[in-house]
């Protein structure tokens, strides 16, 4: 992405879920190589934004546009977005009984590789590749042979998301509160996962409630999402400010339109 086309360009995005309008004219530009943090109170629409980007069928986009590397993202099916390099670390990872984690990840990786015209990895090659990534995120290999997320602890599920991210090496990673409920060690693991992917042609959107993750994953920009819009944007000092004052002071501050950096 050397030619200056942004990784992601969202304009005037409006989206509905469960019969209500959740996103009400959201603008955001994420440049290649940048990490953006999105903070905001519960229910402000952070997960809805993640769902729009990943194409969850239950969310309906009613207005606005989303360009991914200059292409219309909204016309792509979820699996095609994934194969084009969009990854969502789910706030609530899903259990798939009877399907082994290793098999699942291998299928995901090979779908992307086939899409890129690369040869699919067989079981042995996949394991070798996965082992390196497991080291990076301190993942217990026993979990690889268990069913996807079934009976995993909260922390294990989050680590599993990060492992999948490490294996799929996305261009645009969206982490939805991956840090919630994690101890410092696990937080470090999440940070390692994101930081290992940092490069001039990859970007990340890190949705979080707490600024403490941002001590480990240092964002280029911080945005506050409130009532379906970006209410405020700034550098990483904004996260500290929020931590001190909470979100309530935002309501008196004038909303900032078109907060693209």
């Amino acid at each position, binding site marked *: 992405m050397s030619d200056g086309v942004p990784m992601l360009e969202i304009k005037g995005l409006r989206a509905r879920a469960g019969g209500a309008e959740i996103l009400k004219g959201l603008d955001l530009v994420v440049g290649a190589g940048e990490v953006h943090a999105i903070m905001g109170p519960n229910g402000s629409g952070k997960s809805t934004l993640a769902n729009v980007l*990943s*194409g*969850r*069928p*239950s969310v309906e986009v009613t207005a606005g546009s989303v360009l991914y590397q200059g292409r219309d993202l909204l016309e792509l*099916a*979820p*699996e095609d*977005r*994934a*194969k084009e390099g969009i*990854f*969502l670390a*789910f706030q609530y*990872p*899903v*259990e*798939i*009984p*009877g*399907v*082994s*984690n*290793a*098999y*699942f*990840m*291998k*299928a*995901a990786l090979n*779908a*992307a590789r086939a*899409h890129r015209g690369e040869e699919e990895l*067989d*079981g042995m090659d*996949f*394991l070798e590749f996965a082992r390196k990534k497991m080291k990076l995120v301190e993942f217990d290999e026993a979990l*690889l*042979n268990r*069913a996807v997320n079934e009976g995993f602890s909260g922390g294990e599920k989050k680590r599993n998301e990060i492992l*999948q991210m490490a294996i*799929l090496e996305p261009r645009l990673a969206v982490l939805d509160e991956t840090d919630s409920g994690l101890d410092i060690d696990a937080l470090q693991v999440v940070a390692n996962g994101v930081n290992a992917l940092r490069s001039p042609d990859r970007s990340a959107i890190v949705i979080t409630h707490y600024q403490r993750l941002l001590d480990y994953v240092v964002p280029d920009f911080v945005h506050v999402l409130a009532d379906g819009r970006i209410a405020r944007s700034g550098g990483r000092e904004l996260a500290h400010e929020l931590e001190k004052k909470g979100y309530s002071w935002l309501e008196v501050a004038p909303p900032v339109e078109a907060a693209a950096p």
Partner: protein
Amino acid sequence: MTQSSDAMLEKLANRDYQYGFVTDIDADSAPPGLNEDIVRLISSKKNEPSWLLDWRLKALARFMEMLENDVEPTWAKVEYPKINFQDIIYYSAPKQVKKLESLDEVDPQLLETYEKLGISLSEQKRLHGVAVDAVFDSVSVATTFKGELEKQGIIFCSFSEAVTRCPELIQQYLGSVVPVSDNFYAALNSAVFTDGSFAYIPKGVRCPMELSTYFRINAANTGQFERTLLIADEGAYVSYLEGCTAPMRDENQLHAAVVELVALDDAEIKYSTVQNWYPGDKDGVGGIYNFVTKRGACRGKRSKISWTQVETGSAITWKYPSCLLQGDDSVGEFYSVAMTNNLQQADTGTKMIHIGKRTKSTIISKGISAGRSSNAYRGLVRIQPGATGARNYSQCDSLLLGDRCSAHTFPYLEVKNASSTIEHEATTSKIGEDQLFYCRQRGISEEDAISMIVNGFCKQVLRELPMEFAVEAQALLGLSLEGSVG
């Protein structure tokens, strides 16, 4: 469920039946109708001894009595118009000029039929380690690897042949597990059964290959009534596979088989079925009525009988492979996947009858319903007064694909010995939007995701199948095969 996934489910549910062709072959058929003459005809075609004819006639009398008293079973959760038993042809066999000396003499058209079904009867081409008995309409047309098995004293042949080869075994065991008057369809089968497979594994012999029977219904208006009898003598082991298909026809066809298994001391029988009879079209026209009685007797101490079934075909399935756990410390197992689409109906399950001490049974049932189908699990666990320390574990899971299908669970428990332990678990779930989306977000197509989820759901059962059969079963379920990882 989103629109697109509904469309996907619809597509999966409406996959064409691949085995629906008809083989144009001269057949030697009896006129339709059920009476003493037909039974005598069948018996004489097969040169049966008089005791067997008498046995059949007794069964016929019993069946006619039941028919008159209108005791055709109606308790199953299936619906169909009344069957007119006088409209059915009870005997149809491909014409054969003379007795076969070897496989080379089998009508090439028949061989081709089985090739088309993916069953090669040529021993060279056959996957190593599986012997096949091919039953076409009413008769067995070929049995492979007989010679090799005979070296170990194993008898594996068509039922008709067994009647002449080892009449004493037949006389001793036929009807000893499923008596003539056991139920309506078993009585009918006992009167008119035409062929089937027979196997005897002698003392201490571990059968070196999988034995398998492949059933094919070809002729129109013909009922298929086969009889299978497997005997594992003391310390013997055998793994047995059964597959079935039929042409697509607009009228319903009746398949009423009886399978009897006997395991003596320390013997083990593993019986696997992949049932893919023609299910009828998407509007419910045509298809096989699969009314089958399968029962195994764990007669010996420490004996074990294990039923594994993958049921994807038939318009109606009515089938309860069961175990009589007579020997002390004997073990019964039932692993089942029943998948129904469109207007298919399945009422299937098992009966575990604990008679001996410390007998143990496991029931794992997975029902998958799609389209407008109905899928019921019906299972009985009975602990007799003498079955001290008996144990049972039952798990019945249902998976719904879409909104118009249904799943039902009918567990029956009869406990007459307080020292027994019984555990029952049941779940019903819908393929979730969450699961589908999670897979798709990882780049896995919706179709593959559904396959993967269904496959995962059936895993506990599929892993019980012998390898080659598991591949076939997964293909049948529209599944992709899981790789070697994990």
